[in-house]
């Protein structure tokens, strides 16, 4: 500061970096005062900011207006910072605030809905788990809001309606590590192996999982039903199709449902009786059966020759199979024909029949109804050696845990299991539901449980587009997920869907 005496008139060239990122180079005499410099910077040639709004910082000091460059020892080639101050009233706001609430630091709540940058954290934001570092990291990521379900369904739906949350979900689901984690958290999914991953990554699953409308319709349905038998079983007894088959120990589902596995219902599932614990445990087919009964999304598909019989059977889970596997093309569809189901001889809509009988069967004490479903005339039986099937019936009630001596679902006894193609197809079609159930609790219900009561608009797509799907199937488009996707995109137009399917192989 003292050495400024002799060199007052020297001209130096230095830089000014503005907070906006621009950089200006000026050549001025050292005797220039800060205010002169600011006036110079205020011109359009430079920062174009009023001098009064400029603050210049050099070497850790805020330059005062009356001081000269020499006093601050500004040297050739150095850089100072130009900070534009905001409108003065803005700056007074925090000041006024401080005078009143200085004694309560931290009391100011974060404004709701105000976008906050990631680094600054999220306060009480329920989405915090998905926005912060945890999201970028791999640890407990979607757990809080996605898997453990600490919130009410209403909360969940509300979240789903938040575009941000949807975005998060999408991103999370695109992150393989998230998928890994989801799979690892759920014993069922883990046991499913690679298939679980496919399911979780499928577009269809994601859409189902994130469609607030569908979820809301389910909630309505549940409210209507209250704690009625259907409400209970509709929630609990409908097994998630792809998931039930993944228990590796028989009859565990009834004792210890993992948190993510509410859909696994070894005991309550009426179809447990089909295969006993064993059948559920290791047999993917059990899942198919359960899916057909619980949601029976494919009953609607069963318009074709062979499948038509299945649909008529009502509670017959394989009606679903008939449709899902591709109507007329299904070699097993014809199996349904000769075996009308006496116990379900009415031709009331399949879904009602389904749910009604399933409800009964699902009550832990409803062994009788279980048996009813297992009556020999059940076309299901036709698929298997009747003798074997009889054994199963005797051996298993949902309430009992004794596994049947012979499991009709073991591959050698089950013709379906020997047809990998049909199997794969069906599993694929079932995929969405499985993942949904596994990850959003009751969301699985939306696949079909909501059907009997929900208004037409809220019908699940597989029902809404039943005829279109049938047509697509007839034309050889067997990929259920993609068919649905295409139909949804085109609003149910088969032509449009075909175009979409062909153009997006």
């Amino acid at each position, binding site marked *: 500061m003292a050495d400024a005496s002799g060199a007052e008139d020297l001209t130096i060239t230095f830089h000014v970096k503005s907070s906006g990122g621009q950089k200006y180079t000026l050549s001025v005499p050292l005797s220039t005062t800060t205010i002169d410099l600011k006036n110079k910077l205020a011109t359009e040639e430079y920062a174009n900011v009023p001098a009064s709004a400029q603050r210049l910082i050099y070497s850790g000091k805020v330059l005062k207006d009356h001081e000269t460059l020499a006093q601050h020892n500004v040297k050739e080639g150095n850089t*100072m910072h130009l900070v534009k101050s905001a409108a003065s009233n803005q700056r007074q706001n925090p000041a006024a605030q401080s005078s009143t609430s200085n004694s309560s630091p931290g009391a100011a709540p974060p404004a709701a809905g105000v976008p906050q940058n990631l680094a600054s954290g999220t306060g009480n934001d329920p989405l915090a788990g998905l926005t912060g570092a945890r999201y970028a990291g791999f640890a407990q990521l979607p757990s809080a809001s996605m898997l453990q379900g600490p919130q009410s369904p209403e909360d969940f739906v509300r979240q789903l309606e938040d575009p941000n949350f949807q975005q998060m979900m999408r991103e999370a689901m695109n992150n393989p590590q998230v998928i890994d984690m989801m799979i690892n958290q759920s014993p069922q999914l883990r046991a499913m192996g690679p298939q679980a991953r496919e399911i979780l990554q499928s577009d269809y699953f994601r859409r189902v999982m994130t469609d607030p409308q569908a979820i809301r319709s389910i909630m309505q349905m549940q409210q209507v039903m209250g704690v009625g038998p259907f409400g209970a079983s509709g929630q609990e007894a409908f097994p998630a199709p792809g998931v039930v088959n993944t228990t590796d120990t028989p009859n565990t589902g009834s004792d210890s449902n993992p948190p993510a596995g509410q859909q696994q219902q070894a005991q309550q599932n009426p179809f447990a009786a089909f295969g006993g614990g064993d059948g559920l445990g290791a047999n993917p087919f059990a899942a198919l059966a359960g899916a057909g009964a619980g949601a029976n999304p494919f009953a609607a598909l069963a318009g074709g020759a062979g499948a038509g019989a299945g649909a008529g059977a009502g509670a017959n889970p394989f009606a679903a199979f008939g449709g899902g596997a591709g109507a007329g093309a299904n070699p097993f569809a014809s199996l349904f024909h000769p075996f009308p189901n006496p116990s379900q001889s009415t031709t009331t809509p399949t879904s009602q029949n389904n749910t009604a009988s399933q409800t009964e069967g699902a009550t832990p004490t409803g062994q009788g109804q279980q048996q009813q479903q297992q009556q020999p005339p059940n076309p299901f039986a036709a698929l298997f050696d009747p003798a074997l099937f009889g054994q199963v019936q005797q051996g298993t009630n949902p309430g009992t845990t004794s596994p049947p001596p012979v499991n009709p679902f073991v591959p050698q006894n089950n013709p379906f299991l020997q047809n990998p193609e049909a199997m794969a197809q069906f599993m694929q079609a079932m995929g969405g539901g499985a993942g949904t159930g596994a990850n959003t609790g009751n969301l699985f219900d939306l696949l079909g449980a909501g059907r009997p009561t929900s208004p037409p608009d809220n019908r699940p797509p597989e029902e809404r587009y039943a005829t279109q799907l049938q047509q697509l199937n007839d034309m050889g488009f067997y990929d259920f997920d993609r068919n649905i996707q295409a139909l949804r995109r085109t609003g149910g137009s088969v032509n449009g869907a075909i175009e979409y399917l062909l153009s997006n192989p």
Partner: protein
Amino acid sequence: MGAKVPRNFRLLEELEKGEKGLGAEACSYGLADSDDLMMTNWNGTILGPPHSAHENRIYSVNIHCDSNYPDQPPTIQFVSRINLPCVDKKTGKVDPSKLPCLAHWKRDYTMETILIELRRYMALPQHKKLPQPPEGTTF
């Protein structure tokens, strides 16, 4: 990283970086007295982080690099009044135990590190909304 850079070389490096503005934009620092051959006392400024109570504010701090620097962290004292948990309400001194970069000082930290960390500290969610004293007041 081989030989330790002696204190004065290190401070000269930092001085040059600070004067030339090579560092982060939001912080600035320089010698308080350019005649001080020991380069002990420094000035620093921190531009308040956006979206916080500190937005558009410029905070001045004094940095005291004693002879142990950079083996030991410098002492930091706010000149501009600020309400932060790590800053003494009476003196403006930064409590080293409350600022992680001072509590876990490493030799290759610089004054810029501290300033940037202080700025980040201001922007922390639990601090960004703290009511702040009027701008321009000093300790």
